[in-house]
């Protein structure tokens, strides 16, 4: 999303996913002992603040600078945030401590209740994102800035406000993603980077700037990854999305649905 508007890849974005998940973990433990639904709220807020801080202290001063400078700063930032997680929570695998529940059989597939919650929440948040982007004034100005920053400025759109909104929204949604992911799997400091790369694979599959394409891309990658375990060694599970990124970049840089134009 940040990529769509500001045209640069933020390597530190993945860390926001990890921070969201870890902060939720923090609020479920002592001294808070909040249930996960409530713990997620302050976690999301703090992650949004981190996102804003990123913009304010690192990217804002560099916005008109050299691209290479921006990229190196973002990879440095990502490394900084990841190590901060390791410092606070350690490098070991952690979970929210849910009991593994028995899955409900659904046409031969086993689905746990947590996974159903995840799916519902994911669809809900995607819906919200879509409404914001397509039907509000904010969404309109966002898309205008993405199209042509100078022209948007001439039309009286304050870049500062828009960039604020972008960062809040983007960090908020990545934190949601992080919490949902961590509910189903587990938490580790590297989760930010791996999931960022996977998200990239999803976005590239669907075509950049296309919400539904990204959703479908995500689905394809998730299914491909889990099916691949049946055919090749589980160690290569992550391999799939990385290989997909390279393949997609080579053959269809506009994504599968790139030609259709999509929402944007």
């Amino acid at each position, binding site marked *: 999303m940040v990529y769509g508007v500001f045209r640069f*890849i933020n390597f530190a974005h993945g860390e926001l996913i990890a921070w969201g998940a870890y902060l939720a973990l923090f609020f479920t433990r002592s001294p808070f002992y909040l249930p996960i639904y409530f713990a997620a709220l302050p976690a999301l807020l703090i992650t949004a603040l981190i996102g804003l801080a990123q913009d304010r202290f690192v990217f804002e001063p560099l916005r008109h600078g050299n*691209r*290479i400078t921006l990229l190196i700063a973002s990879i440095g930032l990502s*490394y900084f945030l990841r190590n901060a997680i390791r410092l606070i929570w350690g490098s070991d695998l952690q979970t929210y401590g849910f009991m593994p529940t028995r899955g409900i059989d659904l046409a031969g597939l086993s689905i746990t209740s947590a996974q159903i919650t995840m799916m519902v929440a994911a669809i809900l948040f995607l819906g919200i994102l879509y409404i914001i982007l397509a039907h509000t004034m904010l969404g309109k100005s966002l898309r205008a800035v993405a199209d042509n920053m100078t022209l948007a400025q001439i039309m009286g759109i304050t870049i500062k406000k828009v960039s604020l909104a972008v960062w809040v929204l983007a960090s908020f949604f990545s934190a949601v993603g992080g919490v949902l992911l961590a509910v189903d799997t587990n938490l580790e400091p590297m989760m930010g980077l791996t999931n960022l790369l996977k998200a990239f694979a999803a976005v590239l599959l669907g075509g950049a700037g296309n919400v539904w394409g990204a959703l479908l891309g995500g689905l394809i990658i998730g299914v491909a990854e889990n099916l691949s375990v049946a055919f090749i060694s589980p160690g*290569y599970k992550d391999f799939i999305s*990385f290989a997909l990124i390279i393949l997609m970049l080579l053959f269809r*840089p506009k994504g599968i649905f790139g030609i259709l134009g999509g929402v944007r």
Partner: protein
Amino acid sequence: MDYLLHIFIVSLIYAIFAMSLNLELGFTGLYNFGHVAFFGIGAYTSALLSLAGHPVTLGMVCSMIVSGGMGALLAIPALRLTGDYFGIATLSFGEITRLFFLNERWLTKGPMGLPGIPRPTWIGEGVAGLPWFLIFCMLLTLVVFILTRHLTRSPFGRALKVVREDEYVAQALGKNALSFKIRAVTVGSILAGLAGSLWAHYISYISPADFTLTETILVLLCVVLGGRGTNWGPILGAFVIIFFQEIIRFLPIPADFDRFVAPIQGMVYGAVLIILMLKRPEGLLQEYKE
């Protein structure tokens, strides 16, 4: 004294590694975030060959050939992508390579790594061989330095800089930008392979854990801190970074605080990268511009 020799050797290996990245990042303006892959490929090629009983020199030559070949193979498709996408593709390539080392147990022994990699016979094993290894590394660093300096000052190097500044101008001047970039990446990979094989023969034990994103960040830091696009910069950067890393070991750190040291070190590296970009993006040494 032996410890000092060790630091110098590691610094020199990193200097070669950093110079190879500098050729791509500094002179050609390609953000290669998977450069550690070629370091790893070089290390594994050389280690496997010499463990199979072939002479070390052959292993080192082969590691350069294999890394260079892989570099060209990656570069030809990946360089059709522009800018940021190249960064993503190389980052993925670095991860793929690490997963390959981790999973192909028949070849690389997986997470156990490869122990007992021999040094060149004339250098000798153990501590006694250290001064000779240092001289060996110094010679190689000198060769690489002269080579890169010669390359970057030649018309080829000037063309690379033009490609970095503006690809269209390069094309208008009749230079095939793609071919120049591919050649830059290939040479960079060859040199990274050399650094990797030196590393393998010096440390004598390698495992996939040696070739992670941390090493990418470290070498990136060497180049950026020293000064992108300068000949002396990467060497200076490598020495500063490695010495900094080794000095940390002597700080009086309580035993139960040990587990915090590595993350804090990582945070410092990250913070230094950010602050450098904000305050002095050109690094310690500034590129001379006509």
